[in-house]
C-alpha cells in the first residue's frame, strides 16, 4: 500500500538575472510524483520575475521559460488545491532537475530570496 510523500527543496537566488540549476533526489521509496508547488519568502519576486524548467526522471515537465507564477499558491487558495497536479509521474531514478531563472521586471526591486520547490507524491509503505 502506498503512502503520501511530501518534501521541500530550497533554491537560493542571490543575484538579479541569475539562473540557478539544481538537482534534487527524492527518497528511494518514492514511486510516483503527483504534483509540485512553489513557495518563497518573497512570493512577489517569484510572481513577477521567476521562470523555470523542471525535469523529473529525465522527462521534461515544464520547458524553459515556464512562468513560476503558475505554480504559486497563496494562503487565499484552499489547501487541497495548492499543489499543481502533473498526473501520476513515475519517480524512476528519483532525480528532479530544476532551472530557476530570475529576470528583471520593471515592477519590482531585486533582493536575494529563496524559492522552495514542494514535491508531492507517493511512497512505499515501510
Amino acid at each position, binding site marked *: 500500500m502506498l503512502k503520501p510523500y511530501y518534501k521541500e527543496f530550497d533554491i537560493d537566488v542571490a543575484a538579479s538575472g541569475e539562473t540557478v540549476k539544481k538537482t534534487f533526489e527524492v527518497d528511494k521509496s518514492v514511486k510516483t510524483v503527483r504534483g509540485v508547488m512553489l513557495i518563497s519568502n518573497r512570493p512577489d519576486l517569484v510572481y513577477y520575475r521567476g521562470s523555470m524548467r523542471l525535469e523529473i526522471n529525465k522527462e521534461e515537465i515544464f520547458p524553459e521559460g515556464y512562468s513560476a507564477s503558475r505554480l504559486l499558491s497563496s494562503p487565499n*487558495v484552499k489547501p487541497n488545491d495548492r499543489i499543481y497536479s502533473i498526473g501520476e509521474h513515475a519517480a524512476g531514478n528519483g532525480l528532479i532537475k530544476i532551472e530557476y531563472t530570475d529576470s528583471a521586471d520593471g*515592477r519590482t526591486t531585486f533582493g536575494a530570496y529563496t524559492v522552495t520547490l514542494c514535491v508531492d507524491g507517493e511512497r512505499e509503505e515501510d
Partner: protein
Amino acid sequence: MRTRIIITEQKITKGGEIKLFQIRLPKNCKRIVAVGCDIRVETELHYGGLGEIEESGDEGHVNHGSELQWEILSNPYAGQLVLQSMEKANIFFYDHLWVLKYNDSFGEVQDIESFDAFSIIKKPEPKKVEVPCDTTIINALYRDSLGINEGNVTYFVKVLVWIEYDENVK
C-alpha cells in the same frame, strides 16, 4: 498520448505595435488542448504598476472623512492576443491580456487593505481548447495597448500552448 508545453515569447517595444508571428508545433503533435498567456514587463510602469497612483484632484478617491479611504486602482491592460489554426478550427483563441489584475483577490490576511496581484485566490489555469493539428504552424497576432497609454514600454508576451503528442512518432 502525452502532454507537453510549447512556449513562445515575443518582445514588444513600441506603443500600438501589432506583432504577427508563428508558433511551431512538433511534427508528432496530435491536438492542442490548452492555451495560456503571461506578461513580463522590463521597463517601469508609470501607472497601474506597483507604485502609487498619480493624484489628479479627487478623481479615483472616495473620501469618507474619518472612515476608511479607498483608492481605486485600474488593472493595466496589455493588449489582445489572437491564435489561428491553419485548418477548420480557424481562430480558436482570442483573449485580452492584463499586466496585473488587482481585483483577482484580497490582500493577505495580515494586511486587509492591501491588494496584491500575487495574492492569488486560485491556481492560474490555462484556457481549454480542442484543436486537432495536422499542420504544425499556428498563426498568432498580438496587438499592443499598454504602450499607447504608457509610452514605449518594453515587455514580453509569453504564449504557452499545451499539446498532446504521439510519443511513438519521432
